């Protein structure tokens, strides 16, 4: 939850960074709530989008960076399309997520982050996604072995579904690509 006191100085700095990177006028938000009204995931957020915008306006950036919202937003951009002030709300959340990533500030929604990490590591290794492999890895990691396994027979009906990982030839190039992004390409 919101913690007090708020460090305005630090808030201001991070806020400026979010404004600059997202290119959005946060001050234009007049709290109409239309973004929240359209969001399909808001029920799972800790701060619905309009609230998140307000937190940013008053400089409570830490709360935003560490929020579930930043991790759970689907980037579907529905909110951005509906905002009467033409603010790219999804872009703001996206930026917050990136800033949080870089600052190592996220400590919530472990599973979601784990999934994303697993997904990308999977791609890093094979060049393509190996769906079954990801599922098994994720279930193992989250200690929830039965998650979605009921779906497997259904998927297996699709005959040439890969049980073994598909692999591209030039995997070295893909790994180079990951290294280019973050040096090691391992952490997420």
């Amino acid at each position, binding site marked *: 939850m919101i913690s007090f006191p708020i460090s305005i100085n630090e808030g201001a700095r991070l806020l400026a960074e979010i404004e600059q990177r997202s290119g959005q006028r946060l001050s234009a938000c007049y*709290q109409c*709530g*239309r973004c*929240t*009204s359209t969001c399909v995931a808001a029920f799972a957020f800790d701060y619905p989008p*309009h609230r998140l915008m307000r937190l940013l306006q008053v400089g409570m950036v830490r709360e935003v960076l560490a929020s579930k919202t930043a991790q759970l937003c689907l980037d579907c951009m529905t909110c951005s399309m*509906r905002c*009467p*002030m033409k603010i790219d709300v999804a872009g703001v959340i996206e930026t917050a997520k990136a800033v949080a990533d870089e600052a190592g500030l996220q400590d919530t929604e472990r599973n979601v982050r784990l999934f994303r990490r697993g997904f990308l590591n999977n791609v890093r290794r094979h060049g393509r996604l190996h769906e079954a492999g990801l599922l098994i890895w994720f279930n193992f990691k989250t200690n929830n072995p039965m998650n979605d396994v009921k779906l497997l027979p259904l998927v297996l009906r699709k005959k040439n579904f890969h049980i073994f990982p598909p692999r591209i030839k030039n995997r070295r190039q893909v790994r180079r690509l990951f290294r280019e992004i973050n040096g090691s390409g391992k952490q997420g």
Partner: protein
Amino acid sequence: MIGVFICQCGTNISATVDTGKVAQAAAAMRGVADAESIQYACSDPGQAAIAAAIRHKRLDRVVIGACSPRMHEATFRRALDRAGLNPFMLEMVNIREHCSWIHSDVDQATEKAAGLVRKGIARVRHHLPLSAGKTAAVRRALVVGGGIAGIQAALDIAAAGIPVTLVEKSPTIGGNMARLDKTFPTLDCSSCILTPLMVEVKQHENIELMVNSEVDDVHGHVGNFEVDIRRKATCVDEKKCSGCMICQEKCPAKAPDDFNAGMGQSKAISVASPQAVPLVASLRKEHCRRFSGGKCRVCQKLCPAGAVDYGQQDEVVRQSFGAVVAATGYGFYDWTGAYPTYGMGLYPDVITSLQYERLLSASGPTGGHIRRPSDGAEPRQVVFISCIGSRDESVGRPQCCSVGCMYIAKQAILTKEHIPDSQSYIFYIDMRAGGKNYEEFARRAQTRYGTLYIRGRVGKIFPRWGKLVVMGTDTLVGDQVEIEADLVVLATGLTASDGAGGLARKFNISCDENGFMAEGHPKLKPVEAEAAGVFLAGACQGPKDIPATVAQAGAAAAKVIGLLSRGELETSPMVAAVSQSKCSGCFKCRDVCPFGAIEDERPAAGRTAARVLASLCRGCGICSAACPPGVISLSGYTDKQLLAEVVAALR
């Protein structure tokens, strides 16, 4: 013989400018017969001193170094006039706002003041006596648009004994107010207060009412606008028709009901409403069977008055007017395209606020019983959504509709009065209730009538089990909310009315970015259009409610009366003029003139040259900067005057 007077303005000027020294420096200049420093130039003794100097020293030009000309130029012009000198032989030099008040070093300020005065002296040498022209004004006013604004303006002007022509494009006057049920903040019945005024218009000896009519073409200018008015063919002889509505009853061709905002059905031939003024039928050819190739002649056969005439033609009449009031009102934002998530108009039970007014109205299609369009059921859960197409930059409409908050409160109250066990919900962003007794009224909707105000904008509306789900947010709670509604009413924004733009162009009325007609000054000239002799009344100038509309209409009428009661008009002499013998006839000037003040003329055979219509010219001087040979010049701001000023400024 130039006289120079340097004002001290008490210490306002003299504290930083040595006015004596400035006067001395001026005295040394060519043509200066008298130069003195005065304590308060604008005071009675100050003006007397100037007048005395004019008389005794036979001055023919005067330079006054004092405050901004925007402050006292008119004062001193009158002083010159009283002293027997042409008032335009004055040049004011601003040594206060542009000098003493912005500098602190006395020497520097004094030197600058002397320089400014030198500039003024150089300029005044080229002044010419000018006299304000007079033109006779036609003592008749045109009012365009017959809503409450036009009605009120026409009645007020007519009451002063000035004849009025009221032109309304639809078949009846009354405008949007005639379609409202009750009105905030007093809840008096709209027709009850409007209908008597409509009837009075019809009966007034000084008012000529033309419905189904529009302005076709405009020539001339303030004092004498020549206007072509097109009276559109309605296939009904207005003089014969008694409004018995037999034709309407029997006509087999259905047509949309414009008066009821599309709720309910009308016929191809119809009387707009039972309260219509004038109470006559009109036929809409686009819906009539006869005009789409059929054989029907039912209305003609049955009309007891023999009023139906299928061969009627448009008629154009020309009238002259001294002044014009534009009162074209407002239209409605078409929300269906811009808000796809509200159903695009495909859900019958998502209606506009005006349609809801018709459902509430006893004279409406449901006889005043609220019945939702889809199945005629009485709604129990009614959701109102504010700011549709208002305060929404994503659809390009940033402005506030200014009446939505209030009429929603009203409609919520009326809903409860009609259906006591109903519940109204209002999605709003901010409650705007600035008028007298408005806040109290809106509060009552909440406290006495149990309306639930929800602060937030709605995201989507979709169907579920015969109801409409309204997905919104309560931003005060901080979460999404969902309401199952029987009926949803959208407070659609007010736009400029359809015909406003065309009319504005004809009368040189400028429009703002939202299409509303622009007033001369937002505070000081709220009813004057930029074009002389044209006034604005009501919602054509911007969204407003009935009290503000009526107030503005009264003000516009007062301006018209003031203008036309004098019989003749004074025109500014600071206008452009063409030296026709040197004019090349390129008409660059005409292209740039914002007021259409330049026309072509044939001063000699085979030659065309420009001519300025002094009565239209507003003295902007844009033409003279555009003229390649430099032969169109603006009095008061001629090339000579400005060049002299430039040269003197740099000495």
